[in-house]
């Protein structure tokens, strides 16, 4: 019975990967095929080399890309649920499971933000990073579905890990937005946006958006850390012990606190703020990858 669910989960994850691939290609097509080469009649006017972008040509493909993204999200969601059913618990017991849930949270954060902001231009990046994460999970991190070790048998697993994974998804999205800011800022300072980048949001919008995302999710991250402390108190006999994972969660918290202060109180904007945002986000990634795989300490549940 649990085997059937485990296989079902695997198939769903594979299907999700297929659909995310389709979404990726649709996004790529949208970006690339919007370029209209100058028609021969224009050549007399001397703008022979000017290529223009016409997104009306690719609007349909773009919609399909987003539809695929939603379908991929639904399949992956079902895959994560099936994985949980197969093990009779929440699917957050090892690094394979963290990764598929993390990919789910990241594409969920993107789709959620898409409802409010025009972020479709990020779709190419989001679909490729979800694909890479799922690919790594399936190829390198996969472990058979198994019950939890005693220390993880707690309601706090649901609360603490879900809060941490959702925060992580949003932090990464904020990072991507900040990175796009830096890229476009650099392009603008070198003589203006290239044709393909003209459709992307204005710099101020990106700047605001990465801040909004962080401000929105910072309380959740605080909660994830505190929930972890409460759990650690009942499982390990202390609520804080400077375990490497705890330390890096703290560093991430401090880095984002510094970012929020820098923005709100000191008035940092633009490049400086974007770099600080990326720094804070990379402490989260470092915690997830390095400490899980090579680190020591009590949070060694990666199963690797």
């Amino acid at each position, binding site marked *: 019975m649990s085997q059937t669910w485990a296989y079902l989960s695997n198939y769903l994850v594979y299907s999700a990967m297929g659909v995310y691939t389709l979404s990726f290609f649709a996004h790529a097509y949208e970006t690339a095929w919007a370029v209209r080469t100058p028609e021969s009649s224009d050549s007399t006017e001397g703008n022979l080399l000017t290529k223009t972008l016409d997104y009306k040509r690719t609007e349909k493909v773009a919609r399909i890309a987003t539809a695929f993204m939603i379908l991929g999200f639904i399949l992956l969601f079902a895959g994560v649920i099936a994985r949980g059913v197969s093990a009779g618990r929440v699917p957050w017991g090892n690094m394979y499971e963290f990764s598929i849930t993390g990919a789910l949270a990241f594409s969920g954060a993107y789709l959620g933000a898409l409802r409010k902001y025009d972020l479709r231009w990020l779709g190419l990046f989001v679909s490729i990073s979800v694909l890479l994460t799922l690919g790594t999970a399936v190829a390198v991190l996969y472990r*058979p579905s*198994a*019950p939890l*070790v*005693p*220390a993880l*048998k*707690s309601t*706090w697993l649901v609360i603490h890990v879900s809060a941490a994974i959702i925060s992580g998804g949003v932090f990464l999205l904020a990072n991507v937005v900040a990175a796009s800011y830096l890229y476009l800022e650099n392009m603008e300072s070198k003589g203006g946006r290239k044709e393909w980048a003209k459709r992307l949001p204005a710099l101020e919008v990106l700047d605001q958006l990465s801040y909004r995302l962080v*401000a*929105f999710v*910072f*309380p959740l991250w*605080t*909660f994830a850390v*505190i929930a972890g*402390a*409460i*759990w650690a*108190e*009942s*499982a*390990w*006999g*202390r*609520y*804080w*012990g*400077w*375990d*490497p994972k705890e*330390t*890096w969660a*703290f*560093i991430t918290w*401090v*880095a984002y*606190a*510094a970012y929020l*202060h*820098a923005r*709100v*109180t*000191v008035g940092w904007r633009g490049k400086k703020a974007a770099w600080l945002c990326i720094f804070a986000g990379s*402490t989260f990634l470092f915690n997830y990858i390095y*400490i899980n795989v090579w*680190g*020591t*300490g009590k949070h060694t549940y990666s199963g690797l």
Partner: protein
Amino acid sequence: MEQQIIPEIGSLGLLRFVWRQLTSMRTALVLLMLLGIGAIPGSLIPQRSQNPMEVSKYFTDSPTLATWMDRFSLFDVYASPWFSAIYILLFISLIGCVLPRTFELYKASRALPPETPKNLSRLEFYQAWEGNGSELELASTWFQKNHFRIRISDGSLSAEKGFLRETGNLFFHLALILILIGVSLGSLYGMKGDAIVNKGERFINTPTSFDSITYGKLFNESSLSPFSITVEDFIAKYDPVTNAPKDYVLTVSVISKPGATPELKTVRVNSPLTFGSTRVYLQANGYSPVVTVRDSTGAVALQGPIPFLPQDGNLRSIGAIKAPDAIPQVGFVGSFLPTYERSKGNGAISVFPEPLDPRLLLSVWLGDLGLDSGRPQSVYRIDTSVMRQIGLKALKPGQTFTYTGGSITFEGFLPWVNLQVVRDPGKSYALAGGIVAILGLLASLFARRRRIWIRINGSQIEVAGLAKNGAPGLHDEIAEFVTAIKGEK
């Protein structure tokens, strides 16, 4: 010739200067970043508090480097002077920043909202229309219903709302101080002790019962709760495929204070026993081989369970059996294998943590155990430098090994559990701080401070608003307000 007078700063002035620098936002930001960066080495270098074995490995592998690292407290980062300096300065800076703001908020909350500006049309969300005269009254009702604070002037109302933002922000920062107080109380008045208890044995919570105990500077031994715990049963279940533990269940009978009736309780990894601010955790488990050692005279020199320390996930355990009363003195360096198998490369190993085919491997040493010298030594090791090895043997339960000078019988084995007793009187403060911090944070990030004004100018009604920090949503709120005072449904 005129002499230029240079104003002396003086010590008071200097103090004021330092205080101002310390409590400036830029300093706070630098300290915050330093705190984050300062926490990094402790996660990459082994720490004494978590991994003393790794630390001593540094000292044996490269003593000079380790000594230098130790001078900078790199093995005790989180208790080091420099790390403490960062967070103490940060908290002073925080207090210096938060206290004045608290007074300001208090004053502002008692004062009336500012007067209605003369020229409303310059402000955001300005609207004007011909009114019917009842607007001010309706506006006043609406403001009260929506918990605005109102200043009533001649022909105009000035209303303000959203002090929750600043209040939440202040509570968040004050909560951080509360957490720091909780942590300090815990480390000053707290204690932590570990005791290995065999199945069937009783643990009494006194300082001498612990194998290891650490306590805070102001801890008082008399504050140890006088409970006792008897280990009735311990069951560990493992997954037959992955060998990973599935469940640990410890059954104990507890006497909460002398004279109380014993109660049966169950302890699991995530559900410790609680006695006020003291909790008892199930932190580790292993096996104690039960042996009987007879000496050359045939007398029983040692009998009972000897705890062995697990070395891997399959509970291959090592330990030492010392019989100082035997004539001559005898010691056994042993390993216990719950499920024995002989592998080509590694010799005898255990392949499963449950005792499916247990074996006790012994090497027998005769000579001085060194226990009378007074030098402290580990109960799990024997210093064999002045001893002589006289035999090697693998025993199944019930078997006896006879050597020249005595015999040892492997009677069986018992599970042991490591009870960790932790007293932390500060943790409830830290928890309260954590909860207040989150609530304050939510308020400070999502509450909006804004003002709405309304003025009657003849028969003309003017309305305008102002959102602090560019907070969104005032547009809709003013639309709602206008609808309400126009009497439209």
